[in-house]
């Protein structure tokens, strides 16, 4: 019988509640958004007492469903002012689900700013413990080992870094990986600052003796699980030894670069002369050449078939960092004119250490370079700028608050953000559908809310012309499908590469849910539910003050041509508005 854990940081209480009927058949983003829309006033201050941060595993998380260890974390974002669901892999979600915890809601705010607690959750219940000073104000590569020392190596830790303690709007929420590194992140949208504003430093989860996840209809569940497993094991992108397993997500570098859509030097160009050096192929080569701990095919969570992560080695074979992802080697690499994996590796490690999202951090540094604080390509200076964040200097606070804040302070017009959130690694002027996605997503510029790159560039889920502007329907379909099939079920988004090409795989996802919950959903039901999630999020944003003029890209993309295609973003407003209002 699952429960909701409600933690009030004003009263310092932690209580278990029955799951209301309306939440029983959802999970992940469906649940965090529903709770946020019900309990958080849309006009509240994101760092004030009335915001809430909710953690929820997905519907099938904690079961034998493959690649389903994702956690959704939601609330009102201090970065964008919109509703936010930020999503991560790592070890925590499975443990929460197996403890029978449907969601943890953190509400209220301690009377004293700067005081922090830990929340310990295990089979016997939940309790708040004052956070010892030795766990605060330090890098997470120091703090996480201390916490594992204290609570045991087998727990999982969801925590915030210095950035979250200091309420910086780019503070992410960290989840440990299988080797207990502080390296997986629910990075986007600054939810680490919300956690920090509530005085919560970390959640320690011990699932020893946990009851596991009850399955209403085991036969149906097994049919679904097997169909999905088969699809994942067969598809060239997701299979063992396939593209993601061999090269990791940075295998995208070369194709997006070749397509002329790889944002370079703060979105000035779409092709970077140093791209090949940042690619998944280069990471794979370095791991092979250097040996030691270096590896691709690393998994971030239990039960993943794909295993797309990596551990990047230094020249001597010892560990530099896990993980060099596509988005991170782009934002801290090409976007800053840097072509060196040793530099991006160190920058990523610092993001993990200080507790910030790599995408936002890289774009903020790119803006800082645009402003003249460093030359594009100066990796050493980029590292110094990252250290400012950890030190909490005035400059550090500016950068730690993200690209929009940095652009405002330094008078930079070329600020590649939507609703205050930095764009990820695809330029809208060369790939129109992802540009539309950035504009209309309920979460600000966000590629994971609807990964149209699949049909636009990769030839997955069909093929569409990257330059075609008539994409309202396809963008909408991706928004709706993503909200349910991946973000609510607890599956990693990357199963999309298999299930969008192999229909049985997609059916399998729905059957898994039916098996767990005892429901009878069809694919259409699932899409409809995804649409309802997006609809409720838009209603929240509207009540928070957002209008359709916020569903637009930054002005400079309308007039600044992006080489090599030399195009601007020319999707008319009326097509953008058709996405959510056909």
């Amino acid at each position: 019988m699952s429960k909701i854990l409600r933690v009030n940081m004003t009263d310092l209480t932690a209580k278990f509640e029955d799951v209301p009927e309306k939440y029983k058949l959802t999970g992940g983003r469906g649940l965090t958004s529903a709770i946020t829309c019900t309990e958080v006033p849309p006009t509240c201050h994101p760092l004030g007492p009335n915001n809430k941060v909710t953690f929820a595993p997905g519907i099938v998380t904690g079961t034998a469903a493959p690649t389903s260890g994702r956690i959704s974390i939601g609330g009102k974002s201090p970065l964008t002012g919109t509703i936010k669901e930020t999503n991560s892999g790592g070890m925590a979600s499975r443990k929460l689900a197996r403890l029978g915890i449907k969601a943890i809601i953190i509400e209220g705010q301690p009377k004293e700013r700067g005081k922090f607690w830990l929340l310990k959750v295990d089979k016997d219940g939940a309790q708040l413990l004052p956070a010892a000073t030795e766990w605060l104000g330090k890098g997470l590569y120091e703090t996480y080992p201390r916490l594992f020392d204290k609570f045991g190596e087998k727990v999982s830790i969801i925590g915030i870094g210095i950035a979250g303690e200091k309420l910086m709007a780019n503070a992410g929420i960290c989840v440990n990986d299988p080797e207990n590194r502080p390296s997986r992140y629910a990075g986007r949208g600054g939810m680490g600052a919300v956690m920090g504003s509530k005085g919560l430093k970390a959640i320690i989860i011990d699932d020893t003796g946990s009851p596991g996840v009850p399955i209403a209809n085991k036969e149906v569940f097994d049919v679904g699980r097997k169909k999905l497993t088969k699809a994942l094991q067969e598809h060239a992108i997701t299979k063992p030894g396939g593209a993601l397993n061999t090269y990791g997500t940075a295998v995208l570098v070369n194709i997006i670069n070749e397509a002329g859509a790889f944002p370079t030097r703060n979105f000035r160009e779409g092709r970077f002369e140093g791209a090949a050096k940042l690619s998944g192929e280069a990471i794979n080569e370095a791991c092979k050449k250097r040996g030691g701990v270096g590896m691709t095919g690393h998994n971030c969570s239990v039960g993943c078939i794909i295993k797309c992560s990596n551990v990047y080695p230094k020249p001597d074979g010892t560990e530099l960092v896990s993980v060099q992802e596509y988005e991170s080697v782009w934002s801290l690499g090409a976007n800053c004119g840097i072509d060196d994996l040793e530099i991006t590796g160190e920058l990523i490690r610092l993001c993990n250490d200080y507790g910030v999202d790599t995408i936002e951090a890289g774009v903020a540094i790119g803006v800082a370079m645009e402003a003249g604080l460093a030359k594009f390509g100066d990796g050493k200076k980029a590292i110094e700028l990252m250290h400012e964040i950890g030190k909490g200097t005035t400059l550090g606070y500016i950068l730690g608050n993200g690209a929009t804040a940095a652009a405002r302070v330094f008078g930079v017009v070329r600020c590649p953000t939507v609703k205050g959130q930095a764009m990820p690694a695809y330029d809208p002027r060369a790939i129109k559908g992802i540009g539309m996605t950035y504009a209309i997503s309920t979460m600000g510029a966000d590629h994971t809310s609807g990964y149209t790159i699949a049909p636009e560039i990769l030839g997955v889920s069909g093929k569409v012309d990257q330059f075609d502007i008539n994409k309202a329907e396809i963008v909408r379909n991706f928004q709706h499908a993503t909200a349910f099939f991946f973000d609510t079920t607890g599956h990693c988004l990357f199963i999309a590469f298999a299930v969008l090409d192999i229909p049985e795989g997609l059916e399998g996802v729905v059957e898994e849910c039916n098996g767990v919950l005892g429901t009878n959903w069809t694919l259409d039901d699932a899409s409809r539910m995804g649409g309802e999630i997006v609809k409720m999020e838009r209603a929240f944003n509207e009540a928070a003050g957002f209008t359709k003029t916020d569903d637009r890209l930054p002005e400079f993309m309308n007039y600044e041509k992006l080489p090599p295609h030399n195009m601007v973003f020319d999707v008319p407003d009326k097509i953008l508005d058709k996405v959510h209002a056909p």
Partner: protein
Amino acid sequence: MSYKDKLGILNLRVSPNEKTMSTVEVRLYATLRKYYPSLGIGEPLVITLDDKTKLENLFDKLKIPKEEIKVALVNGRREKESYLLEDGDRVGIFSPIGGG
């Protein structure tokens, strides 16, 4: 008078029936690199082709099994196999890949 016109007068211009050549730059990525292991990542293979060579003919000339090719970009655009290559084209050829 242009050089070509002068050659025409002197009857030295290349006959229209004779083939002209195109030079294209080809970059192979992901698992396709195994067919040209000596090339660095992103290092182009410069190939001279007969004029009016189709993309699919290029695949044959490169001896890459077609079933391993997922996407071919020419000058940054995805093109069909029947695309006629032109002098100076930049071609990127990919096995199935994905990411985020």
